[in-house]
Structure formats: structure tokens, C-alpha cells
């Protein structure tokens, strides 16, 4: 008999799907909102239970969906890493929904709020399924689900700008999932399997016999480019600022905090469980990652520096953070991948915090988005002000905060790889300075008093003030304080993959 916590991945995915499906039966948008909150809370608790059970035992299990074992039926596979990601997805989804609920019900028309929450539930299910899946084609199906759901929550705001940016976002990310599908198809042609462990045995056999080496490199390239397009790595990320800048606060928080990361976690899992990381390093896909990561860090920071609109500035800076993550993976060192994972987790907390606080601060001056005219808004809404300050400081890399821990381990892993040491260090330094150059003026602006501005009264949103801002901020601080233990847990998890 399976221990009971083996069922948690399957139960959490199916729970999200069934609640997403049953939302049209509910009568009002509010009720759908409460159901989504309840579902994301239960998923968080379930993943916490799974983490509590799996991390000490350092156990990695696969779970058959249905009666048929591995190569025949679908399978999920979970370990310490997937449990942590599931926990973070659930928690951050819950907090962003809670925090952004005011602007949510203001931006979306009452008749269409239920559709929005169906999308949120399905997006949640897709993110969980992408981390837990042990089967490439299931991964492709849930990538399609997350693409449609992500484009739908961007277009929920129904302004001309969001519709225009959504059609570009949809076109480019369909390109990405098309390339990913070609990768899966080619892999099926040469290995004959769709389940990750079976493909791995075939791939290792192919590598040793030297058969089909050209298709193998092309497959690795296609899977990487497909996922890079969808997670807005440097050359492919043109759609990100418009899409994330225009959406409602909750959508942009969830999109840049979680959806971009779901694809990267899946890519890491594919590289570890399908190709094994040393095969990937021989195919020097990681060098391309390293180069794109560096370019992304610089380009994202420069664009964010030039940006006036506060939300688009945050979107550009997420492009830079994606560059950090891919640079970490591209460092060819296990500690590098672990540091990239820590950066994923830190960014999953920091960016929603920044988006939510920016949304609240902009409400002080009736949806004024330009960072110059947000002067002194923190005094009217001090919770959002403090949250924004903590988030900005973590992005800049002030010690004792999550951003610093991630950057610290990125630097130590760069040390371990002398070939890529200098470019990594220089770009890390430049982008840290650039971060400071566009975050610090922001923080200073919102805290300077401004006599002649006319801030309007701020309706207090208890969910934001008491739960989501404090929890997100404490998540950032928690990651900052015991970064070392997190790196240990992640490295043990990576070894198990």
C-alpha cells in the first residue's frame, strides 16, 4: 500500500482542475473568488505536508496515474524540489489573489469575473502539473493550458492596450510551445518513449553508441529555445513588458512570479531526468544559456532603467532576473543550478510583493502609473510602502534578504568555474549596480513628503495589509536568513532528480 502522502501531487492537481471546471456553476464572482482562495490554501497545506514528509527522508517517488505502470500509463514524480515548488506556487497564488482582490473586482466586469477565476484555477493546475509530471507529452498539454490561461488573465482587463499585447504574447508563446512540441516529437522518434526515465535509458544508450547524435543535439536545442521563448529569456522576451505591464496587479504578480518559473522548473527537470546534466553539458546547450543569461541581465536592467511606467519597469526587471536564473544554470556547476533554483524561489516571493505594493501605491494617486508622480505615496499607504522597500532592497541585494543570498551563491558557483568566472562576475556587478540605479530612486521617491500633491483616501484592504504583504515580505526575509540550509536542501533534491 502506498504511504498516504504519495497521493498529494495527484490530489492537488485534480483538486485545482475540478474546482476550475465547477466554477461556472457558482452564482457570483465573489463566490468563485472564495473557492479559488480555498483551493490555493489547501494546495499550499498539502504541499507543506508533502515537504514535511519528503525532505527529511530525502525520498523521490513516482506515482502511476491509473492502473498501468511507467511506459504505458501517465506518471507523476515528486521529490523535495517539486514539493517546495508546489508549496511556493500555492502560497504565492493565495497571497497574490488575496492582495490584489480590490483592483481585481474593480478592473474586471462583474459578468466576466467567474471566467477569470476559472483561468486562475486552471493556471494553478497547469503549474503544478508541469512541476510534477514525469511524461513529456503531458508536459506539452499542460504548457498549452498555461499558455491559454496566462493570455486570458492578461486580457481580462479589456483595455485596448492589453488586447494588443495579448495577441503578441499569444503568438510568440504559441511559437515556443510549437518548438517544444517538435522537440518532444523528435525525441519520441529516436527513443520510442514519452516517460522521462525510459527516455533517459534510451538517450544514454544512444549517447554511448553514438547513434542519432545530431537529432539529440537538435532536440536539446529545441526544448531549450521553446522554454526560453515562453519564459522570456533575452532574445525572445519582447512580449513581456507590454503583457505584464498592462494586466491587473494579481495577474501580473502571478504571471511574472510563477508562470515564468513553472517553465524553467520543467526545463531543469527535463535536463536532469531526460538528458542527465552531463549530457547537456557535452552538447554545450549550457553555453548558449550562459550567453543569453548574461545578455538578458544587461538588456533587462538597461530597459528597466529607461522605463518611466512603474509596472513596465518591474516587468523589465523580471526579464533581468530570468537572465540571472539561466546564467546560474549555464554555469556548468551543480551549485550554479542550486543557486538558480534559490533565485527562482526568491523571485517568486519578491516580484509579486513588488507588483502588489506598486498597485496599491498607484491607487493613492488614482491609478497614476508613472514613477515620478508617485512621490510621497508611501505616507498614505505605509504597508505598501514598507513592502515595496523590502522588495526593492532584496532586488538590489542588501544582505539578510533573499536577493543577496541568491546573488551570493551565484558568485560562489561562478568562482568554481574559472572558464566562465570573469564574464559572470562583471555582468553580476553591472546588473547589481543597474538594479540599484532604478530601484533606489523609486524607494526614495515614494518616501519623500510631497505637500502640494492631492492623494485620495485609501480604502484599507485587510487581506493585503494583514496577510499578503507581511507574509510575502517574511518569505523574502526567511529565504535571506537561512539561504545556506535552502541551498543544502536544493542540492540534495537536485542530486535525487
Amino acid at each position: 500500500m502506498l504511504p498516504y502522502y504519495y497521493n498529494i501531487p495527484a490530489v492537488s492537481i485534480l483538486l485545482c482542475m475540478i474546482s476550475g471546471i465547477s466554477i461556472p456553476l457558482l452564482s457570483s464572482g465573489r463566490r468563485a473568488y472564495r473557492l479559488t482562495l480555498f483551493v490555493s490554501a489547501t494546495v499550499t497545506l498539502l504541499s507543506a505536508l508533502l515537504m514535511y514528509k519528503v525532505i527529511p527522508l530525502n525520498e523521490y517517488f513516482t506515482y502511476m496515474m491509473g492502473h498501468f505502470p511507467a511506459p504505458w500509463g501517465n506518471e507523476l514524480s515528486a521529490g523535495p524540489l517539486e514539493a517546495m515548488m508546489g508549496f511556493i506556487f500555492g502560497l504565492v497564488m493565495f497571497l497574490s489573489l488575496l492582495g490584489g482582490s480590490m483592483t481585481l473586482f474593480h478592473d474586471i466586469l462583474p459578468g466576466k469575473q467567474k471566467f477569470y477565476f476559472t483561468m486562475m484555477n486552471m493556471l494553478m493546475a497547469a503549474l503544478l502539473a508541469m512541476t510534477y509530471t514525469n511524461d513529456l507529452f503531458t508536459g506539452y498539454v499542460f504548457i498549452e493550458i498555461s499558455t491559454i490561461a496566462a493570455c486570458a488573465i492578461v486580457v481580462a482587463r479589456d483595455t485596448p492596450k492589453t488586447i494588443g499585447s495579448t495577441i503578441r504574447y499569444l503568438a510568440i508563446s504559441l511559437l515556443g510551445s510549437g518548438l517544444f512540441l517538435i522537440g518532444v516529437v523528435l525525441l519520441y522518434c529516436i527513443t520510442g518513449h514519452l516517460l522521462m526515465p525510459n527516455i533517459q535509458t534510451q538517450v544514454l544508450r544512444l549517447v554511448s553508441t553514438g547513434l542519432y547524435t545530431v537529432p539529440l543535439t537538435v532536440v536539446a536545442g529545441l526544448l531549450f529555445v521553446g522554454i526560453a521563448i515562453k519564459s522570456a529569456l533575452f532574445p525572445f522576451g519582447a512580449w513581456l513588458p507590454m503583457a505584464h505591464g498592462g494586466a491587473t496587479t494579481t495577474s501580473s504578480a502571478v504571471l511574472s512570479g510563477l508562470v515564468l518559473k513553472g517553465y524553467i522548473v520543467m526545463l531543469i527537470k527535463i535536463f536532469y531526468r531526460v538528458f542527465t546534466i552531463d549530457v547537456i553539458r557535452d552538447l554545450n546547450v549550457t553555453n548558449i544559456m550562459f550567453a543569453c543569461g548574461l545578455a538578458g541581465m544587461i538588456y533587462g536592467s538597461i530597459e528597466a532603467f529607461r522605463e518611466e511606467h512603474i509596472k513596465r519597469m518591474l516587468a523589465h526587471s523580471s526579464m533581468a532576473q530570468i537572465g540571472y536564473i539561466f546564467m546560474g544554470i549555464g554555469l556548468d556547476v551543480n551549485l550554479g543550478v542550486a543557486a538558480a533554483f534559490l533565485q527562482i524561489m526568491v523571485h517568486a516571493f519578491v516580484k509579486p510583493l513588488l507588483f502588489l505594493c506598486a498597485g496599491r501605491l498607484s491607487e493613492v494617486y488614482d491609478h497614476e502609473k508613472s514613477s515620478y508622480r508617485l512621490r510621497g505615496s508611501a505616507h498614505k499607504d505605509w504597508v505598501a510602502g514598507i513592502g515595496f522597500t523590502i522588495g526593492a532592497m532584496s532586488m538590489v541585494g542588501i544582505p539578510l534578504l533573499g536577493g543577496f543570498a541568491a546573488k551570493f551563491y551565484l558568485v560562489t558557483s561562478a568562482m568554481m568555474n574559472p572558464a566562465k568566472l570573469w564574464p559572470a562576475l562583471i555582468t553580476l556587478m553591472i546588473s547589481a549596480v543597474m538594479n540599484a540605479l532604478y530601484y533606489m530612486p523609486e524607494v526614495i521617491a515614494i518616501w519623500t513628503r510631497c505637500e502640494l500633491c492631492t492623494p485620495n483616501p485609501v480604502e484599507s484592504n485587510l487581506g493585503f495589509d494583514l496577510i499578503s504583504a507581511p507574509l510575502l515580505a517574511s518569505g523574502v526575509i526567511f529565504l535571506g536568513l537561512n539561504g545556506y540550509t535552502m541551498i543544502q536542501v536544493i542540492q540534495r533534491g537536485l542530486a535525487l532528480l
Partner: protein
Amino acid sequence: MKQFIVELINDRFMIAAVLLFGLGFMNLLLQKNLIKKIIGFNVMDSSIFLFLASQGYINGRIAPIITNGVFDAEVYINPIPSGLVLTGIVVSVSVTAFFLALTVRLYGIYKTVDFDEIMLLINKEAE
């Protein structure tokens, strides 16, 4: 040269699929009209499914419907690709519907279906 032609004829579906993918991909990027872009996307998607389904075909075997008690696998083709392509066709229809809905709304706002014009209008509005 003759051997190359024989091989070309033999791999006809895969080469056709790749060329159609290139055609659809090029049109998805280069066509100005949104409707043409969506047709290009459809051509691209169905070419990937043509490539996948042609992988399942084995010469001289019949469709995987078990008829009059014949059970051994040498008689039937490989059923997995047709199962995957079935899923793929429905995915590409639903994504086309979403794309078309966006085009209708964009026409409603900007009264044009030319993608570059729309993007210029949006950038003009943004400043």
C-alpha cells in the same frame, strides 16, 4: 543521385512536414494580415502533426482496430502517434478560436487587421 531520390521518395512525409513547417512559420512571422498569420499558425501546427503521425505508420499494416481476434502486434501500426495527434488537433482548434476572438476585438477597437499598424497605434497611445 538515384539512391538519393529513392530515399527522398521514402521519407516524403517527413520532408513535406518540415517544408510545410517552414512555410507556415515564415508566414506566421512575415504576413501583415492577422488572418493570414492565423492560417500560417494552423499550417505550422498541422505540419508538426503530419510529422508525428507519419512516424507511427508502418508499411503494409492496418489501422489499430483489433478485428476478428487477430492480436499480435505485427499486423497493426503504432497507435501512440495517432492518439497524440488527436489531442494536438483539438488544441490547435481551440487556440485558433482564441486567436480569432482577439482579432475580432482588435478590429472593433482599431478598425484594422494589419498587425504592424496595430502595434504602432498601441505604441503611439503608450507615450
